[in-house]
């Protein structure tokens, strides 16, 4: 086997104790095992190497070797990544896994290569859900007039505006204070984030909207990747796949536990009926059209077909 001693810096945003940190450790262990200890992953969490966009630029420039981060922050680098921002694209994790690990997911990932990044696998951040202080959101009309913090991103802003909320962009660092002082009424994030950021202290209602599925993506600097031997590349890819399987299982178990915790912390939790979800989805055709034109009609159609296949094949 053609494997040299290597030190690989792998950056991520959450802390060591998070699902991201645990999966990074699994990845590091797998790489060490498969390379006979020659390739060392130095996993550095808590955004110590900077926020996602900073790490991405470092990877492209070859100043850092690997990272895992949100696909949404890659949209500025590779516009096809915007496909994963589509609201209500997946209705469950089974569909998400099938599409992300299938040819469509690979195609989107491969587009990164032109920009100096190599995508290996998708991890799961999770379905985003909505919390607020005003009322349980059980139907479309309940969103009316809720001042909702969304990620500073046109798709999310427009989507929630169309659904009737007053969508407000705000930095995540200011979010807790803004919720506490009621500068905004609500926000939307996966369960794990709602729990770890203590939003339950300042939010009453949690509505299980599953309105968008957020993946994370493991990437390598292309400059670095091209200097690796085939064997070394295989070590990284195989370990990434193992870390992916572990991460998804771990994240899902944690999300279930987080939901239970949020309930025990006193949040009032309600689900959305499939009929209401469909009403929301139908309202967003304009958004879908603009995403389709951004990522290209071919990719959009392939994605829809892949989702339909996953949905039919259950």
């Amino acid at each position, binding site marked *: 086997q053609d494997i040299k001693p290597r030190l690989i810096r792998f950056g991520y945003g959450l802390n060591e104790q998070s699902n991201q940190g645990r999966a990074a450790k699994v990845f590091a262990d797998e790489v060490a095992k498969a390379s006979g200890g020659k390739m060392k992953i130095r996993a550095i969490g808590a955004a110590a190497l900077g926020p996602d966009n900073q790490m991405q630029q470092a990877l*492209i420039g070859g100043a850092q070797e690997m990272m895992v981060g949100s696909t949404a922050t890659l949209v500025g680098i590779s516009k096809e990544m915007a496909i994963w921002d589509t609201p209500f694209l997946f209705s469950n994790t089974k569909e998400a896994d099938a599409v992300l690990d299938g040819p469509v997911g690979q195609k989107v990932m491969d587009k990164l290569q032109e920009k100096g990044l190599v995508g290996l696998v998708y991890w799961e951040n999770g379905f985003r859900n909505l919390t607020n202080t005003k009322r349980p959101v059980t139907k479309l009309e309940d969103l009316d007039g809720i001042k909702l913090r969304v990620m500073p991103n046109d798709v999310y802003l427009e989507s929630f505006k169309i659904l009737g909320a007053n*969508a407000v962009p705000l930095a995540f660092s200011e979010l807790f204070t803004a919720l506490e002082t009621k500068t905004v009424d609500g926000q939307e994030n996966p369960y794990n984030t709602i729990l770890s950021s203590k939003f339950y202290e300042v939010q009453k209602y949690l509505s299980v909207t599953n309105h968008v599925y957020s993946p994370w993506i493991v990437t390598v600097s292309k400059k670095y990747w091209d200097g690796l031997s085939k064997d070394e590349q295989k070590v990284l890819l195989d370990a990434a796949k193992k870390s992916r399987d572990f991460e998804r299982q771990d994240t899902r178990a944690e999300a279930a536990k987080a939901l239970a915790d949020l309930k025990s912390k006193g949040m009032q939790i309600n689900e959305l009926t499939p009929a209401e979800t469909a009403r929301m989805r139908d309202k967003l055709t304009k958004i879908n059209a603009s995403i389709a034109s951004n990522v290209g009609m071919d990719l959009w159609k392939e994605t829809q077909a892949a989702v339909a296949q996953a949905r039919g094949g259950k």
Partner: protein
Amino acid sequence: MNAPDNTLHPMQRIVHTLMATCLAVMATAVFLNVVLRYGFGSSVPASEELSRLLFVWMVFLGAAAAYPAGEHMAFTSLIGLLRHRPALFAVATLVIRLLVLLASVLLGRGAWQQVVVGMDSTSVVLGYPVGLLPLPALLCAVAIGATALWEIAQRKPLDLGHSAEVE
């Protein structure tokens, strides 16, 4: 503190006007969002991104302008003691300037690489090329590096009197 504007080099006057404009636009953009959100329940999503970009430009332009005026924060008590030993003082001055030159070269090189890398990516909301963020750092490094070289060549005495108003 502030020299009257008519004694300034035209280049400095341009930089000052650019900085003032950056600050005015930043303040207006952030204020507008408060008014829109509180008064009308809406907002301009570009406000945050725009004001952060202008902030970075204002700071690095200002840092470049502050260098020749000796306005950067420095701990000069110790070197001040050497003032009456001209030979030693000249050596220390040269060492400081060579170190400033080194720092400018490192910063400038890194900023240049990041400008090149960033030209291929766009920001999330406004869609400006991400290379615009490190660009002012590059300009600043070039300006300070060139000034330091000139100071070395001219053997300009080190200015210990100035200290900027901070805190």
